[in-house]
C-alpha cells in the first residue's frame, strides 16, 4: 500500500461512510457549523418502547438493579454523620456478551440486517467488539472486528487479548493491529471491500440503544425507592454512554437526576504511542478518550457523531487507576460480585460521591461488565508490573499514569477530581471555531454552539478570547 493510495482512500471517506452507514449526513447540515442533532437521532425510526422490544427479543436489557448495602455501609463508616448515600448497581454484565455494549450492538445489527447489509464491521478493542460479534452471530450476519491489540513487540494487554478471543468465539473475523491511527485506514479499506455495515459506536442507532438503559435505571429506582435516582454515575470514554443514558433518563421523566461522567485519569500518556500503549492499565473509560471526544466529538469514524457528552453531563470526575482497582476489590470482597475492572470506574467515583451526599440520597452505578481471564485486576496488575509500572499501597495522589498504581487501603482515601466544565466548553468552542471566519457564522450556528455547550446563546462569543486560547 503506497501513501498515495492511502490518501486517495481517505479522499473517498465520505462516500464510503454514506454507503456503509446508510445515512446521508449532508442532509442534516444547517449552517457553516450547525447541524440538526435531533433530526440525526430521528434516523432511528423506533421509539423507546420499540427499541426495548427489539433488544429483549435478542436477550438484551432488563438487567438486575442491585443495592450494594455493604458498600454503602463501608462508605458511611468513613463519612460524617448523616452522610453516605445508598449505592445501587445496574448489573449490565447480565447481557448476552457481558456488558451494556449489547444494547448498542443490538440496535446497530438490527438496522444492518433491516437495511440488507451482508455483515457488520466494528473498529474497537473493547467490549463493543464482542457485543457486535455476539449480535451478528444471532442475526446470521458476517462480522469483522478490527482491534488495536499489540505494541511493536507483539505484546498485547491481557484485557484486549480476551476481547480478541471472545470475538473469535462468536464467529467474527478478528484483525489484530499494532498501535496507531492508521487502523482507520484499514477500516475504510474493509468497508469498501466487503460492503458491510459500519457498526460504529457513534451512529444514532448505537446511541439510541443505550437510552433503554437510562430509562430502566429511572424505573428500577422508582420501584425500589419510590423516586428516580438523585445521581447516576456513568463511565465516560467516547461519550455514547453518557449521551444515551442521559437521554434515556430524560425520556423516563427523570429530569432532576444529576448525570455524572467518570473517567480514569491517564493524563500524560499518549494514545498513539507504541511505548505508552502497554503502560495504560485501562483500555477504555479513561481520559485519553474522554477529553478529545468531549471537546471534539466529530473526530470519530462517522461524519457526524451522535454521542454529544457535553450536552448531557452535569459533572465530570476523574478517578485514579488505583481507586478503580480498589473499588473492584471491594465489590468482590464485600458484595460477592466479581465484575469489571474497567466498568468499575463509575463505581470508584460513586463511592467517593456517596460520602458527600446525605444518607437518604441515591447514587446509581449504571453498568458492570463481565470478568474473565485477562479481564481481571490480578491479570492487569501483573501485566502492569511486567511493563515497568510499580503497584503499591498508597494514596490517590501517588498514582502516576504509566509509572505508579497506588491502591488505597481505606475508604476514607477515595476522592474525586472535578474537571472544570467551563474549561471544556471553551476548549470545545476553540476547536469548533478553528479555521472558521466569524463572519461566516449565522444565528443557526450560534444556537448550535449554545446547545452543544449548554450555555445561553449570549454566552457564545465568537471573538478574540476564545480564538486566542491554548489548546
Amino acid at each position, binding site marked *: *500500500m*503506497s*501513501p498515495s493510495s*492511502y490518501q486517495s482512500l481517505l479522499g473517498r471517506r465520505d462516500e464510503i461512510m454514506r454507503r456503509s452507514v446508510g445515512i446521508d449526513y449532508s442532509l442534516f447540515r444547517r449552517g457553516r457549523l450547525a447541524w440538526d442533532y435531533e433530526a440525526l437521532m430521528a434516523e432511528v425510526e423506533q421509539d423507546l418502547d420499540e427499541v426495548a422490544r427489539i433488544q429483549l427479543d435478542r436477550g438484551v436489557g432488563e438487567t438486575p438493579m442491585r443495592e450494594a448495602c*455493604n458498600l454503602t*455501609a*463501608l462508605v458511611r*463508616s468513613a463519612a460524617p454523620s448523616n452522610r453516605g448515600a445508598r449505592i445501587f448497581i445496574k448489573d449490565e454484565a447480565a447481557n448476552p456478551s457481558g456488558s451494556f455494549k449489547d444494547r448498542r450492538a443490538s440496535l446497530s445489527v438490527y438496522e444492518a440486517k433491516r437495511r440488507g447489509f451482508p*455483515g457488520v464491521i466494528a473498529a474497537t478493542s473493547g467490549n463493543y467488539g464482542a457485543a457486535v460479534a455476539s449480535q451478528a452471530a444471532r442475526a446470521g450476519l*458476517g*462480522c*469483522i472486528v478490527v482491534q488495536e491489540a*499489540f505494541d*511493536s513487540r507483539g505484546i498485547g494487554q*491481557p484485557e484486549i*487479548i*480476551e476481547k480478541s*478471543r471472545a470475538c*473469535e468465539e462468536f*464467529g*467474527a*473475523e*478478528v*484483525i*489484530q*493491529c*499494532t*498501535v*496507531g*491511527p*492508521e487502523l482507520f*485506514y*484499514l477500516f475504510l479499506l474493509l468497508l469498501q471491500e*466487503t460492503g458491510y455495515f459500519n457498526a460504529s459506536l457513534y451512529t444514532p442507532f448505537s446511541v439510541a440503544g443505550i437510552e433503554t438503559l437510562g430509562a430502566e435505571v429511572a424505573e428500577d429506582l422508582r420501584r425500589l425507592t419510590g423516586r428516580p435516582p438523585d445521581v447516576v454515575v456513568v463511565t465516560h470514554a467516547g461519550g455514547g454512554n453518557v449521551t444515551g443514558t442521559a437521554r434515556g433518563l430524560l425520556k423516563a421523566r427523570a429530569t432532576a437526576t444529576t448525570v455524572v461522567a467518570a473517567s480514569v485519569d491517564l493524563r500524560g500518556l499518549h494514545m*498513539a*504511542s*507504541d*511505548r*505508552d500503549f502497554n503502560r495504560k492499565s485501562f483500555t477504555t473509560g479513561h481520559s485519553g478518550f474522554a477529553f478529545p471526544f468531549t471537546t471534539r466529538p466529530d473526530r470519530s469514524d462517522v461524519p457526524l457523531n451522535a454521542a454529544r457528552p457535553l450536552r448531557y453531563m452535569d459533572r465530570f470526575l476523574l478517578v485514579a487507576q488505583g481507586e478503580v482497582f*480498589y473499588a473492584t*476489590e*471491594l465489590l*468482590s*470482597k*464485600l458484595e460477592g460480585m466479581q465484575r469489571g475492572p474497567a466498568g468499575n470506574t463509575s463505581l470508584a467515583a460513586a463511592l467517593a460521591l456517596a460520602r458527600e451526599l446525605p444518607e437518604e440520597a441515591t447514587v446509581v452505578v449504571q453498568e458492570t461488565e463481565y470478568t474473565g*481471564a*485477562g479481564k*481481571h*485486576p*490480578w*491479570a492487569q*496488575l*501483573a*501485566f502492569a*508490573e511486567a511493563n515497568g509500572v510499580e*503497584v503499591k*499501597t498508597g494514596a490517590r495522589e501517588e498514582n502516576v499514569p504509566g509509572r505508579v498504581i497506588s*491502591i488505597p*487501603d481505606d*475508604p476514607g482515601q477515595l476522592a474525586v477530581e472535578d474537571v472544570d466544565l467551563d474549561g471544556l466548553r471553551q476548549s470545545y468552542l476553540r476547536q469548533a471555531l478553528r479555521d472558521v471566519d466569524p463572519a461566516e457564522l449565522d444565528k443557526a450556528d450560534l444556537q448550535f454552539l449554545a446547545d452543544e455547550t449548554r450555555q445561553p446563546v449570549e454566552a457564545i462569543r465568537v471573538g478574540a478570547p476564545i480564538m486566542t486560547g491554548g489548546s
Partner: protein
Amino acid sequence: MGGPAVPAGAWVRIHRIELAPSERAAGIPEDSAAVPFESWINGWLVENSPLGSRTRIRTATGRVVEGELVEVGPGYQHSFGSPPPALQRAGEGARARLFPQDAP
C-alpha cells in the same frame, strides 16, 4: 522458510505489514513512526504452505487474505495471574472494618 508444509485446511495465523514506517500517518509519536503498522489474522489455510512462507487464508467471513504464515493452531494464553498483595491487603482491611467480629 522451508520445513514441512502445513496442510491446506489447517487453522492458522498470518502476519501482514500494512504500512512500512515511511508510509505511516503524519503526526504520530516518534516511537510509533519508527516501526511498521502490522496486523495478524486467523483463518483456514488455502493451500499447503511451510511456516514462514507467503500464503493465503480464508477468514471467518470468507475473505481470502494473503500474508506470512506464522502459527498453526493459534490460541490464547492470557490468564488470571496471582493476587497482588496490595489488592489483597485492601480487601482484607475493608472486610475487617465492616465485619470486625470476623477479623483474623
